[in-house]
């Protein structure tokens, strides 16, 4: 027999162990929370940092004279006539006025590449909204092309500008010119280019040696032959690079796969094509006309580190954009297009408004279908239905439905709503119906749990004073279960709001350039929703869609948080009213 002191000692020994286990459990819990929060912070932080450039946009403001002859060809200010106006021509003329020296077709095309012609539709809409503008000169602001925008935001290339000192003279103000400096200021460029060329040549030679080694090692004659060809090609490329770099009297030709060199002098910009005369002379063409040709002490050499062939924006376009910024025509502002426009092929005009309206309409349909049907089902099963095999079978199947992959609901929607019922594709109505099917099980299960949690004494009390079953449910049980039902419904709807897969099946993945109208009619117009918009943008060809994808993710997250905040608020309200 153990006596009392023994028992105490045994309990004490176990007690220390029990407390240690509790302490360990707490530490694990805290670690888990820290890990979760830091991963979440990392995720949101990286998305936010990627999205930054999407929230800024460079806009060009230019005064445009709405010449009546060109805007209103019929001269009657009618809508039909105003629609035939040459708005893009006006915009082109306005831009040409900035750079009168740009004349040949190729250069003009590059200049007009600084904005998308889609902007002319915006100008047209402005005139259509107010025909009295015809004949006036207005300030029109539009976003510059995404490539120019990315350059101005410093995302395309790094650049340096340095003043070499000494005097320089340019032969003309436009066209092909020769810049003559009093010393060999251009020779560092020549040396730099040679170094680059030689480095590239030796890289090619190394590659050729590797191929040759592999060719001798391989047993297959065919493979050896192929490798030999590759090696020979690399060697010949290397040889030509070395020839280019050969010191033939301190002169060198520029090429698009070398960093670009530009000269700023006398208020203009010259692109260097060739350096000769021992680094004293540079030849090139004028991109922005010079003010005069007198000798200048105050000039600089401007280097764009990424070669022209490796970026989507030409030297000329960079120079013009930079010049427009210097003249105050181009200003970086908050990107409102992201919030006021629907989708567009051009990133600078693309926005999420269409997707937000589509989401709102889709969610409206989902909510109107899933919540009443789901709650009614839950109330019937929980409060009225007899507990028998049939209701048991239904219950099992509802639980199974909650686990069905969402794409299956999309297939169902395609087969039933679109093929069988002939409802429109890409419409929020069908999307909402599909998502409602997907959300129903969640709403039913959570609502049933909420109803189950209402104490039976309340039902007895109501029945005891003579309330009917329906009165008992409506007056007493439902109000008490409302916070739980609300939470469940919101969880279900939030899940539906982030769903992409089922919507792909019913065609909501289409490119929709017009926001659906925020009305009943909008329910059958083609639309897309936020997650699908994100999916589309993530696949976008233009680099500028990358930050916009991240921005759209942030907007969707913000919408979700807002949605949940409303739910929490409503829940509090309901609970306070007991």
């Amino acid at each position: 027999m153990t006596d009392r002191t023994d028992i105490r000692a045994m309990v004490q020994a176990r007690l220390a162990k029990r407390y240690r286990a509790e302490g360990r459990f707490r530490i694990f819990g805290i670690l888990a929370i820290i890990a979760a929060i830091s991963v979440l912070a990392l995720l949101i932080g990286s998305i936010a940092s990627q999205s930054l450039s999407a929230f800024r946009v460079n806009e060009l403001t230019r005064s445009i004279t709405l010449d009546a002859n060109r805007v209103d060809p019929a001269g009657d200010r009618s809508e039909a006539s105003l629609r035939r106006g040459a708005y893009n021509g006006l915009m082109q003329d306005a831009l040409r006025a900035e750079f009168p020296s740009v004349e040949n077709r190729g250069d003009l095309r590059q200049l007009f590449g600084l904005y998308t012609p889609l902007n002319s539709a915006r100008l047209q809409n402005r005139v259509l909204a107010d025909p009295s503008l015809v004949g006036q000169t207005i300030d029109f602001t539009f976003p510059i092309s995404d490539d120019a925008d990315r350059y101005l935001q410093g995302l395309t290339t790094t650049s340096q500008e340095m003043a070499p000192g000494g005097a320089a003279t340019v032969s003309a103000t436009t066209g092909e010119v020769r810049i003559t400096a009093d010393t060999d200021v251009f020779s560092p460029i020549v040396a730099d280019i040679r170094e680059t060329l030689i480095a590239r040549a030796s890289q090619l030679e190394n590659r050729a040696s590797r191929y040759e080694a592999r060719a001798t090692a391989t047993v297959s004659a065919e493979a050896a032959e192929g490798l030999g060809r590759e090696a020979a090609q690399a060697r010949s490329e290397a040889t030509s690079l070395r020839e280019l770099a050969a010191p033939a009297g301190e002169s060198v030709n520029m090429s698009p796969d070398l960093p670009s060199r530009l000269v700023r002098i006398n208020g203009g910009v010259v692109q260097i094509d060739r350096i000769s005369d021992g680094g004293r002379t540079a030849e090139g063409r004028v991109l922005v006309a010079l003010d005069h040709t007198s000798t200048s002490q105050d000039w600089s050499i401007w280097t764009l580190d990424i070669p022209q062939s490796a970026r989507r924006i030409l030297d000329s376009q960079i120079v013009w954009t930079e010049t427009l910024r210097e003249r105050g025509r181009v200003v970086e502002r908050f990107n409102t297009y992201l919030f006021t426009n629907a989708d567009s092929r051009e990133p600078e005009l693309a926005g999420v408004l269409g997707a937000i309206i589509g989401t709102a309409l889709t969610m409206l349909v989902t909510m109107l279908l899933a919540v009443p049907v789901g709650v009614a089902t839950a109330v019937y099963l929980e409060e009225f239905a007899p507990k028998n095999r049939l209701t048991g079978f239904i219950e099992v199947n509802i639980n199974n439905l909650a686990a069905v992959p969402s794409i299956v609901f999309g297939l169902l929607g395609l087969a039933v709503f679109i093929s069988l019922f002939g409802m429109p594709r890409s419409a929020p109505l069908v999307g909402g119906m599909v998502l409602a099917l997907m959300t129903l099980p969640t709403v039913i299960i959570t609502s049933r749990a909420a109803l189950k949690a209402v104490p039976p004494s309340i039902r007895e009390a109501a029945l005891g004073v003579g309330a009917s079953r329906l009165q008992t449910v409506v007056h007493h049980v439902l109000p008490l279960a409302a916070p739980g039902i609300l939470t469940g419904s919101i969880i279900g709807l939030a899940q539906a709001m982030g769903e992409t897969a089922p919507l792909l099946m019913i065609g909501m993945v289409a490119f929709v350039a017009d926001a659906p109208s925020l009305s009943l009619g909008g329910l059958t117009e083609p639309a897309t929703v936020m997650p699908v918009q994100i999916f589309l943008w993530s696949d976008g060809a233009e680099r500028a869609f990358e930050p916009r994808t991240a921005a759209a993710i942030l907007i969707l997250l913000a919408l979700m948080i807002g949605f949940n905040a409303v739910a929490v608020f409503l829940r509090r309200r309901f609970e306070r009213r007991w």
Partner: protein
Amino acid sequence: MADSGNRTSTVYHDAARNLAAKITLDGVDVFYGQKQAVHSVAMQIPDRSVTAFIGPSGCGKSTILRTINRMNETIDIARTFGSIRIDGEEINSKEVDPVLLRARVGMVFQKPNPFPKSIFDNVAYGPRIHGLATSKTELSDIVETSLRKAGLWDEVADRLDQPGNGLSGGQQQRLVIARAIAVSPEVILMDEPCSALDPIATARIEELIDELRENYCIVIVTHSMAQAARVSQMTAFFHMGDLVEYGPTEDIFTNPHQSRTQDYITGRFG
């Protein structure tokens, strides 16, 4: 039913026979699924008096009580057979609407269960759903009268808009009684109304029951022998689903005819 043949028959005291009955039970059987909870109970319950049902746990006394307002029907598996009459009118038939019946037969439960609404709304709920008041003032009158009858008016008159479940346990139970009498029932059923209350609150409820006796037919289920002796005029002793003995309370407690009653009352079992 099947096995009721080998059961002892009920002993009725003289005063329990042929009394002016408000409620008459005749051959009442209650089944929960396959299990029979009440065996062929027959008794008459007088008006304007308190009848106590006593007996050990699981003896069927609550089940019998709940047949009188057909609350058993809310349990899926429960079935009730036999005749239950109030003022000679059969209530255990499909033709009688249970909702209507429950307006005539109020019920107070073991645990105070006020609605999570204001004190006023708790009492006004019954009159509202039955349309007993045509105007707001009439409704307020009903609420005030009911609360006065339940002896709660003086305590809550100045806070009728506050939640009913903010009151103390004893107050809540009196609120529930007020809610029951607000629909002017003829019968009030009480299922162990004091088991969740302290002695002071219990005493207050017992006083109230005594006052209510003047106007209502009250049936109370209790585990407390002393309470049965204090508040009731008639006592019925149940055991294993049988009504064992039924008579005036004084008789049952001082001169039980059955040994089982004697054993239970003296605390030898149960």
